[in-house]
């Protein structure tokens, strides 16, 4: 009986953890091309979720709401890049950290003013009835998170490996100057990465909201965990964030069950401290090898 409860907790936690993984994956996308990340990524998740909720309330069916939300997220990502990150990168400064936080705060205020401060339910056609798999109850809703996260990460990886534009993306992350010499515009590639990262954030919001509800505070709750995942897994392994995200989700859920819900955040923060102390390049990160 006890093992079953542990299994149950671990599985639902791990599925939630995939959302952290997806947000962390968004960090990796922009880090690859520009060595910068959007510290306001949580706000992107939240605002895109609210926007998608509005689409649903306006009567858009699920299959139309999802691409609409993704496009909106991509647009927000482009705004962050154009209005913030690029200004700092052009001067080779680290100002993108503060600029992306500030733009995130703008999004946060906008969301509070447009949609209010309350948490709202996010209707979805996917049923929340549990299905029993090997003795563990999983809802279709939780499964939809797994399918959505793995599908979009798979698509992006396919794009990077199979299309010339995707290879150009990889080239910019390997050597920006050399890529420019091939006629690849690094500026545009960075834009592309922010657009993709925004779309990925929007999908995270759309997937998680039916389970957790939508509200302005979801931004900060999610971002910290996504950070933990990104730091522990490293900023260059998509596989890494999936594994660490699921592990963190499972740990959280077990901690809140056995130690009380006040301890929910403890595993993530402990992992973060351990990772920074022991292996700052991330468990899955490659140590940079440089040939002279």
């Amino acid at each position, binding site marked *: 009986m006890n093992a079953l409860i542990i299994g149950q907790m671990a599985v639902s936690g791990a599925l939630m953890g995939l959302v952290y993984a997806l947000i962390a994956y968004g960090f990796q996308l922009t880090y690859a091309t520009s060595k910068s990340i959007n510290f306001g990524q949580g706000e992107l998740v939240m605002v895109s979720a609210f926007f998608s909720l509005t689409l649903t309330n306006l009567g858009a069916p699920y299959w139309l709401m999802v691409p609409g939300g993704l496009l909106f997220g991509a647009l927000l990502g482009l705004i962050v890049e154009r209005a913030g990150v690029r200004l700092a990168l052009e001067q080779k400064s680290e100002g993108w950290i503060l600029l992306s936080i500030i733009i995130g705060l703008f999004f946060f205020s906008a969301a509070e003013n447009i949609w209010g401060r309350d948490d709202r339910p996010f209707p979805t056609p996917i049923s929340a009835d549990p299905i029993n798999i090997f003795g563990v109850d999983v809802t279709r809703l939780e499964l939809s998170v797994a399918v959505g996260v793995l599908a979009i990460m798979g698509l992006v990886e396919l794009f990077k490996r199979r*299309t*010339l*534009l995707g*290879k*150009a993306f*990889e*080239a910019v992350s*390997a*050597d920006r*100057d*050399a*890529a*420019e*010499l*091939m*006629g*690849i*515009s*690094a*500026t545009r590639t960075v834009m592309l990465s922010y657009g993709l990262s925004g779309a990925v954030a929007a999908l995270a919001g759309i997937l998680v909201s039916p389970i957790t509800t939508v509200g302005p505070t979801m931004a900060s709750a999610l971002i910290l965990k996504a950070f933990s995942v990104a730091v522990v897994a490293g900023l260059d392994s998509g596989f890494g964030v999936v594994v660490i995200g699921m592990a963190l989700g499972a740990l959280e859920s077990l901690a809140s069950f056995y130690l009380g819900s006040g301890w929910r955040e403890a595993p993530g923060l402990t992992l973060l401290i351990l990772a920074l102390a022991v292996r700052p390049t991330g468990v899955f990160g490659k140590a940079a090898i440089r*040939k002279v």
Partner: protein
Amino acid sequence: MLVVDDLHAGYGASEVLVGTSLTVKRGAVVALIGANGAGKTTTMRAISGLLRPSRGRVVLDGKEVQGLDPSRIARLGLAHSPEGRKVFGPLSVEDNLLLGAYARLPRFFGFRSRAQADLDRIYELFPRLKDRARQSAGTLSGGEQQMLAIGRALMARPKVMLLDEPSMGLAPVIVQEVFRTIRRLKEEGITLLLVEQFAKSALEVADYAYVMERGHIAVEGTPEELGRNERVIAAYLG
């Protein structure tokens, strides 16, 4: 084809180029030689846009390109094979080559078949690259990486190619191979500006040469003329 006129450029406050001027005619191989720190690589970087010139003009095929982004200049027909080769280490050899032709290939699908003829040509020029087509470029030897860097630049079918220090850090046998390739490309009519430490080898293959000293051109002439210039012989060919 390529005209550089009174080029000034540098890093921060220190000016490295102080009025460099040179011309590369269509179908000519031009060598740029000189001591370490004379400004050869800086000249290349300022031409291709990696370094923004503070003064002067770079004219590529009749169009002024100074101050443009390197990607823009590349799309206008300049291929710069940089010092240190700079291959994309994590990507495969073939992907490196395909990216060389990025400017004229479709972005999503069908790019491989469109580039097949060019790939075949590069593989014929460097059979070793064909054997290693699927390997990641970072695992190649220095000589193979140099061939890849040259091949990648050729994939663009450039109007003008800049080749910076192709012999750097390579074994003598490989250096000979590199120069054999350059000679062959010359027969095929390439327009090339070549920077080289091995002044002798460079002059053997060049139609015309410039000698750089402290950021400007000190001497210029055909290889025969430079071969008779006592200063050049003493400093670079002795």
